[in-house]
């Protein structure tokens, strides 16, 4: 797309993620062990799995918020640690209720004691479609608007890697669809790892879909949906992939009765 934003002339380098031997455990309870995977630069990877499979912990570990277990090796594709080069978007929008939308978008600079470029803030709020509510406090915004502010705040950080933890799960279907498209458009230059529990969301957006099951080990099985994102959810190919994912999520001999498997 002809989106040459003048406010960020120097595009940061694309950065992939390489994870080797990842082990995630809660005390004695090992959730994931010896897991290895790569995420190509500027690609969108989705991580699917049931609750309690360790998805969020995995994401937090990559974000540097949780200590990785001893054997794990997490790096960016340039061989350096990831720390400081990721932006994080959590399940909740995490807007600070005492700041207005604009101040929330500029939060990173505020926290680092820098001055945010007001033109850039405004430009990003325009691109995420939230410019009209610039002065509103989070309490006055709808769920969709709040996630738009959160998205603008993520983009404001201008990091090569974006980690997202079910950012749209609390939204209604229509708003979710719109925000998925918006995120896809705005994050096309980033390497994205998104955790979700919604197979359709993963299939719409991802280049690769990884399915994790509790106690998973070794290399990550990945699924590469055909076509380019954002895909049309009514596409039959997508429904087939959906069935395949559901089969992988709950490996029981029940393929025939899954919704969508008939297509």
């Amino acid at each position, binding site marked *: 797309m002809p989106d040459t934003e003048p406010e960020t002339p120097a595009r940061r380098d694309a950065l992939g993620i390489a994870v080797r031997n990842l082990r995630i455990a809660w005390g004695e309870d090992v959730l994931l062990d010896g897991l290895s995977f790569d995420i190509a630069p500027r690609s969108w990877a989705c991580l699917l799995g049931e609750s309690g499979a360790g998805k969020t912990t995995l994401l937090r570990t990559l974000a540097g918020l949780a200590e990785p277990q001893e054997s794990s090796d997490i790096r960016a594709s340039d061989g350096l640690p990831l720390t*400081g080069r990721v932006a*994080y978007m959590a399940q909740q929008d995490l807007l600070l*209720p005492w700041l207005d939308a604009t101040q929330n978008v500029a*939060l990173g600079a505020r*926290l680092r*004691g820098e001055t945010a470029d007001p033109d850039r803030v405004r430009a990003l709020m325009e691109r995420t479609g939230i410019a009209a509510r610039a002065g509103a*406090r989070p309490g006055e915004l709808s769920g969709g608007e709040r996630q738009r502010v959160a998205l603008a705040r993520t983009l404001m950080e201008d990091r090569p890697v974006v980690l997202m933890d079910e950012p749209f799960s609390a939204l209604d279907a229509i708003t979710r669809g719109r925000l998925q498209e918006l995120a896809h458009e705005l994050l096309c230059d980033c390497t994205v790892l998104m955790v979700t529990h919604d197979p359709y969301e993963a299939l719409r957006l991802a280049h690769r879909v990884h399915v994790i099951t509790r106690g998973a080990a070794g290399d990550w099985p990945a699924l590469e949906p055909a076509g380019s994102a954002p895909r049309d959810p009514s596409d039959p190919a997508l429904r087939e992939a959906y069935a395949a994912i559901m089969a992988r999520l709950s490996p029981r001999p029940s393929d025939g009765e899954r919704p969508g498997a008939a297509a």
Partner: protein
Amino acid sequence: MNLLRPAIVFLGLLTAWQAVVSVFDVAPFILPGPGAVVAVATERADILAGHAAVTLGEIVLGLVFGTALGAASAMMMAYFRPARSWLMPALVVSQALPVFALAPVLVLWLGYGMAPKVAMATLIIFFPVTAAFYDGLRRTEPGWVDLARTMGASRGAILRRIRLPAALPAFASGMRVATAVAPIGAVVGEWVGSSAGLGYYMLLMNGRVQTAAMFAALFVLAIMAVALYFLIDAGLRRAVSWQSDVDPSTSF
């Protein structure tokens, strides 16, 4: 109208008071009627105002010191583990000892002036502010801190920009309690030993069986305390206007 209800309650109480006085024919030195109290209050307005200023000064100074001390110790406890283990027992002991019991000692040490009353008010205010603010500082939404960490915020920035503002509503609750109890400290101090203040004046009038004057002082104290509470409450509401107000009686 917001003021209608309190006005009705107030007038109702006045009427009941007058009724008790008239019906049971109470001696004026036991319970004077509202009319007598108002008469004394207007007649001695100057004297009452002078004493009220002293008491108000004690309360306000106590609030300032108590709040500052409470906020400081809450932050110490939240950020330095050793401070927590040393301060907590001291705090609990300071609250287990009734301030009333400390009053004579404070007067002995600090004299008959305003100092022991301010100290007393400070002691009373200090605890609710510390407890509430400390609680607020510990209950920061963990997601906000996570987010700030991925943004490269320092510990100090997280404290200043996230934990402190997030703890403001809790701090405000502590301040409200503190404001409501602050007059107790000042008045108790005045009772134990002083030469000015509404508490002193009430005791003096009590001794002289000028019950109406005593009631007049009591009312001035009550009005002052209520006005102070509403003033501080309004200020706190403005400071944490972003906090969503949910009425539990209508939203279940």
